[in-house]
């Protein structure tokens, strides 16, 4: 409305004298037409134009929700074992009962489980006897006899009276959506806890790294001279120790468990951050606005917290998002080596480790946690990439 009025005013003026200059008030000249946009809304504006970065962010959010709220929606706990139902896959090959009311599934230990029509697992049939001559194991189903015929591979369920193989079918497992592991634990539930552990490790490692790295790098870069030299040589020494070896040593010393993983990763990974922050501070402290702050007489604390760190935030954030995947990978790797979390606690690494035992018969047990590790790492890498571009003011349009 206001704009319209101004426009018509301007138009009237032009019509009066088409070649005359428009009157210009001092107030108008100083006005900034653009919307008042803070630094972070500016970054968000550029970040959201990058589809991969947005997708990465979405995946991270979904995984967070999955890990944090998922366990409230499953009826299993990560430690509940059901030894009757071990190594059940998510997609079952079953045999249809003759009356058509349900399916039968042969477990790895040669037992027969009833699978309801909707795909949920029912009771286990009682075993009656085995007839080695006929290569059949007989089970009782509502008073009738059915049998596993192991004369052919893979084994089938047959009607021992009519000597016919029951019709085959495939159904999705509704009781254990992602199947069960070697101890009959629900993989989906364990995956939620595993993701939770991985993300927890990642975030704590990152917070520890940021705090130590920023303080250490900031002091080193700002102080300069001999202090900087000594502090950076310490960083060099720490970074020459093979990381994995060092982490394993810490785990041996402190015992395995979540706390020692976090301590181990937290005490080692900050060296990269310290280097990045130091480099940034070194270049920034020569900038005129920092010199200005010194001539004003601002204390060192203000210079560091108000001027240097906020301006170094771009590279810091990028380092963080690149650091998260490596922390997650380190945790998974330690879990895989068997020195991570102790059972029955689950992490993505220990789940992979457990699954390697029966990789041939149940590849899904390895595939699923490995996929989640990949997803997390991809997502953080994409977000890191997007942030780096979004934070680079040279790309500003």
């Amino acid at each position, binding site marked *: 409305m206001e704009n319209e009025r101004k426009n018509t005013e301007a138009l009237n003026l032009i019509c009066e004298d088409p070649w005359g200059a428009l009157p210009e008030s001092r107030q108008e000249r100083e006005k*900034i037409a653009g919307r008042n946009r803070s*630094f972070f809304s500016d970054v968000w504006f550029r970040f959201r134009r990058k589809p991969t970065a947005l997708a990465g962010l979405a995946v991270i959010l979904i995984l967070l929700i999955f890990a944090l709220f998922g366990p409230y929606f499953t009826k299993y706990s990560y430690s509940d074992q059901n030894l009757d139902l071990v190594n059940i896959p998510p997609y079952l090959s079953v045999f249809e009962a003759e009356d058509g009311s349900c399916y039968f599934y042969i477990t790895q230990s040669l037992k027969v489980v009833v699978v309801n029509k909707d795909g949920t697992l029912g009771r286990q049939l009682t075993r009656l006897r085995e007839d080695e001559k006929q290569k059949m194991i007989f089970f009782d189903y509502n008073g009738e006899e059915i049998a596993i015929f192991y004369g052919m591979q893979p084994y089938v369920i047959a009607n021992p009276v009519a000597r016919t193989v029951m019709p085959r079918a495939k159904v999705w497992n509704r009781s254990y959506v992602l199947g069960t592991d070697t101890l009959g634990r629900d993989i989906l539930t364990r995956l939620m806890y595993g993701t939770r552990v991985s993300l927890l490790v990642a975030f704590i490692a990152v917070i520890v790294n940021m705090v130590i790295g920023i303080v250490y790098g900031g002091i080193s870069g700002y102080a300069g001279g001999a202090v900087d030299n000594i502090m950076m040589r310490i960083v060099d020494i720490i970074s020459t120790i093979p990381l994995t070896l060092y982490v394993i040593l810490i785990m041996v010393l402190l015992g395995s468990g979540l706390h020692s993983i976090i301590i181990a990763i937290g005490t080692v990974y900050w060296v990269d951050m310290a280097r990045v922050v130091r480099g940034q501070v070194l270049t920034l402290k020569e900038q*005129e606005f920092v*010199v*200005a702050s010194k001539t004003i*007489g601002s204390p060192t604390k203000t210079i560091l917290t*108000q001027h240097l760190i906020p*301006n170094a935030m771009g590279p810091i954030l990028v380092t963080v998002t690149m650091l998260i995947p490596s922390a997650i990978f380190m945790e998974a790797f330690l879990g895989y080596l068997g020195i991570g979390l102790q059972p029955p606690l689950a992490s993505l690494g220990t789940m992979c480790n457990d699954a390697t035992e029966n990789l041939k018969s149940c590849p899904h047990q390895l595939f699923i946690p490995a996929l989640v590790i990949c997803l997390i790492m991809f997502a953080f890498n994409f977000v890191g990439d997007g942030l780096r571009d979004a934070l680079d003011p040279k790309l500003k349009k």
Partner: protein
Amino acid sequence: MSEKTMLEVRDLTMHFMLNKSKNLKVHAVDGISFAIPRGKTLGLVGESGCGKSTCARTIIRIYDPTDGKIFLDGQDITRLSQKELKPLRKKMQMIFQDPYASLNARMVVRDIIAEPLLAHGIIHSKKEAGEYVYPMLERVGLTREHADRYAHEFSGGQRQRIGIARALILQPELVICDEPISALDVSIQAQVVNLLKDYQEEKGISYLFIAHDLSMVRYVSDQVGVMYLGQMAELCEAEEIYRKPLHPYTQGLLGSIPIPNPKLAREKVTSGIQGDIPSPVNPPEGCRFCPRCPYAKPVCSRETPRLKEVSPGHQVACHLY
């Protein structure tokens, strides 16, 4: 030193060590002396790299001077620690050359201008800043609405005025202007210079005004000092230096001012200075200007000329006088 002297500098020397073992030093400032009376402006001119900015930064004690003395309002501040300097910083502020680099892009204007107030305990939280910041913003020709904007949203001239507001908010008695206008358009230069002049008339503060633009210096300064390779070549009243330049270097500098009238320009004797400024790491023996000086005599390459008074208020460092 009279009561009225705001800033006095005696034989100020600032050398930067490049290589200790080879004893390589940059002779950025080499024995400069001048005094600025209260309420007056000293213009400091010279080519790029002649040590003007280093001089300014040494006076405001960003660098620790190698030698010499700095007196601010009669007090020797040459060897004070940063902690002891802090209360004195209220008296002495600086305006920087680059309006883009001298403001923190992550801060809003209110916080930028309030930083000196917070540093000196005049206010204790950012919430109280408005009371001081709004009048100052209006003083430099901006408005209240600008207080919540980020520095990168402003034009160069506006940014420089924000820098001036930051320097003036503590009501200093001496402001060191380190080429405050050289990064600005000509139309904006006048705006900024007039702002500084008006403020001086109002509050009676002193300026050390550094520039390489002689015509603008003439307009602001009461006295003008011409620097060459870390040394003062000539120092006198502003009008005098334009009317009667004595040092060959000053004459050359004045000859290089573009004249807007083409008819006049043709008549003007072109006496531009030949050659480049020598390296401050290895300055020439004797008079530092002698390799480029058209009137050089044998004595010039042997003896360093001292700054001497040739007529009342007119000092020059040259063997010709």
